[in-house]
């Protein structure tokens, strides 16, 4: 388990730059456009009928995986193009990277209502909902992938780049021989994370329903939702079983083999630790089919593709300087989108101003309530993950025993379990409040736990021996060794976790369940309610507020802690 860099460009401690403002403006205008479109959204949207018979499950599973695959393919294409432009074009980079940073920290789920309503106003219902789900999953998967690709491109060792220039590799060959192989490991790890995160949003999209508008999609999520609605415990068990089975199958047949395969792309010259293994990969690579495919199909094909590119796009002897006209065009062209942006921002401002003060008060109150829930969820998660994580991370036997269990538990997307959770918790007083915190907790605790385990197992053995020799007491040991060593990992985990908690608030604070609508005070509830009522000014204001709150928290609190952790508490 590796710790990932959650702030691609955290080196600057300045909270906001011009690029950030532009990025925020862009998001604002896109949201406004969505909200404008949504004005024409139909008032009643009827969802699909869900079949609870177990034999319907394979079809639902196929639909869910299909949506994920479509979104992931889209993400990968976007990543390769966007990251490459940002890495090689200095001027574009100055806007593209802050934009990525803002988008990455925005609670994506808060955009779902706007996107759903906007699309269903212009497209047939079924297509609109399907597309909205894919867009949502795409936006949840794409940013870290793009960051990974961009970071790989910008960290390729200088001498490898020089070698490919001196040996005259053209753009395609550089991409195939240098850039893609160099980024492979990072792309695969991030794809895995994206995929895991995608389930959370897929389930949320499949079960999303507000008031008269039923946006559900046929799939595993809707199946679980329907099963919980009808209190059909048999179906609930079938549904969860199917979901876990799908996730495990994907892990064993796609991700593990890919990781084992990608080990060859390690740049580090020393062979450390044991290489990752996969039984399926071993089986596959020893099969004669694989070598036949390589020798007869992929090898010759690749050779042809390479030759085609080399013939048609040879290395240019000298860079052609752009003509004066082209230079002017290059300077003037960005002005047009900027003008559109500013006008859009102006219209959005008008819409926001039309909102009465009382509703702004509601938004403020909701923000506080949701923030409180996020903090409580985070504290509860810390309280149990730190002791357990340290125990697992420092004890091999325990790790061997618990690690697989934890991984399976973590692989089930929290949103899939939410309807089931409601079934039980709603009977309690303040039921939805508890359920909301629980959902946030379920969505976030695993990030923390995995990071704590990684941090604890990274404590150097000689430091542990030293604290044994010094006979440090339990308290002293935690204070001087364990907590400081965990700090960077805790911060990384907490940043991801709090992002997840904000996302969860959209589905957690408002629920259509058993034919009735339940809601509690909170920003997420406000967003869902505004979607149901068709109050588009409120929807825009609440969504924006959540976005700004999260971005601000990231910049002012998390980023500083992250920089502190990187500078002071890193084990070299």
């Amino acid at each position, binding site marked *: 388990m590796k710790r990932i860099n959650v702030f691609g460009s955290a080196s600057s401690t300045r909270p906001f730059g011009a690029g950030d403002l532009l990025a925020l403006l862009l998001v604002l205008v896109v949201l406004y456009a969505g909200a404008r479109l949504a004005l024409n959204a139909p008032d009643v949207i009827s969802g699909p009928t869900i079949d609870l018979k177990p034999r319907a499950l394979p079809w639902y599973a196929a639909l869910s995986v299909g949506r994920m695959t479509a979104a992931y393919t889209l993400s990968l294409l976007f990543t390769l193009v966007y990251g490459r432009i940002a890495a090689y074009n200095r001027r574009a980079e100055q806007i593209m990277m802050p934009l990525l940073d803002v988008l990455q920290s925005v609670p994506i789920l808060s955009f779902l209502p706007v996107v759903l309503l906007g699309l269903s106003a212009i497209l047939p219902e079924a297509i609109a909902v399907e597309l909205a789900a894919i867009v949502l999953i795409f936006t949840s998967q794409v940013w870290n992938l793009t960051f990974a690709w961009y970071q790989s491109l910008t960290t390729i*060792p200088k*001498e*490898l780049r*020089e*070698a490919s*220039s*001196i*040996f*005259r*590799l*053209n753009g395609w*060959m550089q991409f195939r*021989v*240098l850039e893609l*192989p160099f980024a492979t490991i990072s792309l695969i790890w991030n794809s895995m994370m994206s995929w895991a995160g995608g389930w959370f949003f897929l389930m949320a999209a499949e079960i999303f329903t507000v008031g008269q508008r039923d946006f559900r999609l046929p799939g595993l999520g809707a199946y679980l939702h329907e099963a919980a609605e009808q209190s059909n415990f048999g179906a609930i068990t079938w549904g969860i079983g199917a979901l876990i089975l799908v996730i495990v199958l994907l892990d064993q047949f796609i991700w593990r083999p890919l990781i084992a395969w990608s080990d*060859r*792309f*390690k*740049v580090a*010259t020393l*062979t450390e630790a044991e290489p990752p293994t996969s039984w399926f990969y071993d089986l596959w690579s020893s099969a004669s089919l694989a070598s036949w495919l390589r020798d007869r199909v992929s090898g010759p094909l690749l*050779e042809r593709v*390479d*030759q085609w590119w*080399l*013939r048609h796009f040879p*290395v*240019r*002897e*000298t*860079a052609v300087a752009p003509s004066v006209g082209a230079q002017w065009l290059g300077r003037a062209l960005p002005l047009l989108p900027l003008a559109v942006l500013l006008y859009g921002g102006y219209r959005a401002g008008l819409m926001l101003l039309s909102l009465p003060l009382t509703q702004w008060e509601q938004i403020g109150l909701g923000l506080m309530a949701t923030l409180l829930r996020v903090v409580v969820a985070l504290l509860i998660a810390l309280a149990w993950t730190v002791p357990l994580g340290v125990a697992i991370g420092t004890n091999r036997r325990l790790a061997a025993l618990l690690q697989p269990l934890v991984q399976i538990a973590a692989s089930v997307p929290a949103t899939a379990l939410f309807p089931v959770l409601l079934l039980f918790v709603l009977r309690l007083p303040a039921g939805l409040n508890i359920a909301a915190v629980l959902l946030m907790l379920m969505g976030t605790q695993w990030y923390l736990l995995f990071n704590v385990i990684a941090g604890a197992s990274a404590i150097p053995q000689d430091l542990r021996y030293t604290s044994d020799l010094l006979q440090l007491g339990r308290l002293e040991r935690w204070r001087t060794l364990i907590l400081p060593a965990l700090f960077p990992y805790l911060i990384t985990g907490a940043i991801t976790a709090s992002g997840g908690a904000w996302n969860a608030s959209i589905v957690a604070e408002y629920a259509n369940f058993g034919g009735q609508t339940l809601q509690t005070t909170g920003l997420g509830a406000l967003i869902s309610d505004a979607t149901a009522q068709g109050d588009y000014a409120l929807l825009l204001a609440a969504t924006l507020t959540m976005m700004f709150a999260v971005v601000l928290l990231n910049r002012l609190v998390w980023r500083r802690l992250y920089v502190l952790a990187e500078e*002071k508490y890193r084990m070299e």
Partner: protein
Amino acid sequence: MMGENGVLLQLKRVSQQYGSGERRFTAVEDVNLTLGEGEFVALLGPSGCGKSTLLRIITGLQAATSGEILYRQRPLRGVNPYATIVFQTFALFPWLTVLENVAIALKVKGVPADLRATRAIDALDRVGLDGFENAYPRELSGGMRQKVGFARAIVTEPELLCLDEPFSALDVLSAETLRGELLELWTGGQIPTKAILMVSHNIEEAVFMADRIVVMDKNPGRIIANLPVNLPHPRQRKAVEFQNVVDQVYATLAGQTQPEYLELGTAPGEPGRTRRLPQVAIPDLAALLEYLSDLPGNRTDIYRLADELNLNSDTLLSLVETAELLGFATIARGDITLTSLGETFAEASILARKEIFATCIRRLPIFKWLLAMLRAAERRQLDWNVVQTALELEFPPQEAEAQMDTMVNWGRYAEILAYNDDNTMLYLESGATSSN
């Protein structure tokens, strides 16, 4: 020896600058260089003298700020198609096999697959790597990896073979073997290469291999000498003639101790050049002085020190420069002589050494400047970044940071400076405020 036709490469008044306005720094200044067919030239100098920059300009990886680069009388534009580089860190693609790494240079030239393999295997044979075609670079030792680097470079039959410190990342034995093997290929005419240009900071290596040594110095990077090496191959390192050339190069690089006002330079911000502090570890400096104090007459040839103290020439020259700068030694004609101050230091106790050291560095303009700023500052403390920003008017950012590191390091040893990394504040050490 070489006619007009024999000239491969010509640099005319080539300069390379970075940055702009007040913060404009010259990496390479006004370099004139001619490389003829059949020549093996070594570009030698301390780190930071711009020799690698010059190599990149010659191969077209980098464009010079000004000046002309002619290859066979034609101005060079873009990457030089007649040159290849063997890199210091090998620069092999880790995910390609040895054979693929060599063959890729041919593939992009449109050589068909079967011919590619034949020629790549032939190149690997010549460097003695037959049998390792299907290994991955990570399975090979450093020396063998560099052989792949050589095979990849010669497989395209370049006219100009550029070597960027090709032996400095290798262990001593592999480096020595590889040097011999390269010389065999070159002097035996087994490769169609017309000329070799090798960047090196290892003086013995340059004398061992090259026909001509172009000596560069830093601040700014420039050529200070052109020394022919007229010794027949194979050269004997212990031979007197060989040692004489080494001595001559050391003498060129170490220079001559100047009168104090020239030697010390000026403070940052004042007219004139601020002297850069060499980056050395103080225990190493002490060891050098102790060694010298045990010698008869407290003097020796600098080149002998490299062998006897087992130091590379780069580190040795930095140490010698430090000793000279602080007044512990004087340099003349490649000899180093301990001063009486240096002798006192060498024989002093730990605490007395610190006091002597403190007195010495207080004389340096850059330290005077820093101490004066600290004394004038509120609560006698300054933020690291403030000082570094001020230094960046004199040095490029990276160099400014390195100078800060050295000042803090020396100041801490002398107990006149303190630095707190938590709040990045520099302090005057109490007791250091009153004197001087």
